[in-house]
């Protein structure tokens, strides 16, 4: 049971949602945008999050888009991870979503919720980083469409009242070879030791990681070393491992040493899968 009360609103447009959120904020209600809601319910039950009002974005048509528009794939923020898997529109994103929680939970967890949540893994952002996707953000001044790289730094950097409406990916990336693996310590359903997503574009391998550091990332230096084909695979991988942007996580799920060990092996797996590299 959630031990405190809050108000529930379900606006029908982005404009209505933003103005409602800001009004609730001004009234001191500490509002939260609500999509799948699994993280809010879980944390509220444990008093780890508090709000006096939630604004549910599932009634906004733009947030429920899941379709190909010309040469672009459009994913609404309120689309569930299970819907993305079932759609088959973007196999790499489907695989990344497939690794999050369990199937029934994925029928509730949404794309926007996973990318914008407090839980640090945010695996659904990895394909977006690899494909230089764009995101549509709703805010006080209406909708703006920007590169994911402009607004995602460790987490989605948005102003008060802004929320993720859509993720837009060029369709050509859906046909590229990819590798996506989640490694856990024991159970299949658990938070990850790491998730590695890789995509081969124009003969170059792109890599994005979650669970290695305290935030998901794509690092140019890692890709530069991994794509240095003149060097042996072990040297490429070891050089890449020296380019991590922050300390490797060291927690109950896995020590930093174990995570590095698993990451090294998974990078070899990615190279083998995408270019048949000798390891």
């Amino acid at each position, binding site marked *: *049971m*959630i031990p*405190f*009360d*809050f*108000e*529930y*609103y379900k606006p029908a447009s982005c404009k209505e949602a933003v103005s409602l959120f800001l009004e609730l904020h001004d009234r001191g209600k500490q509002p939260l945008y609500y999509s799948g*809601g*699994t993280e809010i*319910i*879980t944390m*509220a*039950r444990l008093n780890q999050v508090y709000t006096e009002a*939630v604004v*549910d974005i*599932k009634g906004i048509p733009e947030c429920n888009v899941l379709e190909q528009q010309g040469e672009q794939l459009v994913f609404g923020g309120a689309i569930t991870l*299970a819907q993305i898997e079932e759609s088959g529109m973007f196999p790499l994103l489907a695989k990344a979503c*497939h690794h999050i*929680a*369990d*199937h*029934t*939970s994925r*029928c*509730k967890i949404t794309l926007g919720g996973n990318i914008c949540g407090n839980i640090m893994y945010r695996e659904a952002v990895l394909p977006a980083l690899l494909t230089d996707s764009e995101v549509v953000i709703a805010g006080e001044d209406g909708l703006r469409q920007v590169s994911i790289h402009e607004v995602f730094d460790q987490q989605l950097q948005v102003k008060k009242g802004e929320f993720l409406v859509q993720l837009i990916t060029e369709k050509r990336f859906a046909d590229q070879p990819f590798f996506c693996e989640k490694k856990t310590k024991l159970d*299949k*359903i658990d938070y990850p030791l790491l998730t590695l997503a890789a995509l081969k574009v124009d003969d170059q391998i792109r890599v994005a990681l979650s669970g290695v550091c305290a935030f998901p990332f794509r690092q140019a230096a890692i890709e530069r070393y991994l794509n240095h084909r003149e060097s042996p695979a072990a040297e490429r991988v070891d050089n890449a491992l020296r380019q991590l942007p922050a300390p490797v996580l060291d927690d109950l799920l896995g020590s930093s040493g174990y995570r590095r060990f698993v990451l090294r092996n998974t990078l070899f797996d990615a190279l083998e899968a995408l270019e048949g590299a000798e390891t």
Partner: protein
Amino acid sequence: MSEKASFRIHVNGEGRDVLVRSADTLLYTLRDQLGLTGAKPGCENGDCGACTVLVDGWPTKSCMMLAVEADGRSITTIEGLTDSPVQKAFLEHWGFQCGYCTSGFIMNGHALTEIHPDASDPLVENWLQSNICRCTGYQEIKEAIKSVLAKTES
């Protein structure tokens, strides 16, 4: 909607009026207001699947859904399943021991056989990983569901 409000919820094919806090989960609304106790509280953290119901035909952990979110959706609980082949298969294959997780497994298995009657083994395992059986009856549960899929295929 502020603190407490009434609305009509569509459960097992009929409209039922409920009075809920916005913070009430669907699980406790079903159990305490509508007397539908087939959805079981287990972990209440979205992990165990004992509270699984169907929302518009898809499995959903009712502890992870606010009752107010059910407005306009079609909810099916274990009480709403009559003569589902999965229920019969659980009996035939001994797909339960203590029975506490059974309704959640049946709801999930029923949805799987309806949505993916041609489900592959990996897909069955993928869906069943959503539920936990502390009596560890997994093999029998899987066999029960696969028997329904096999009949559908034939």
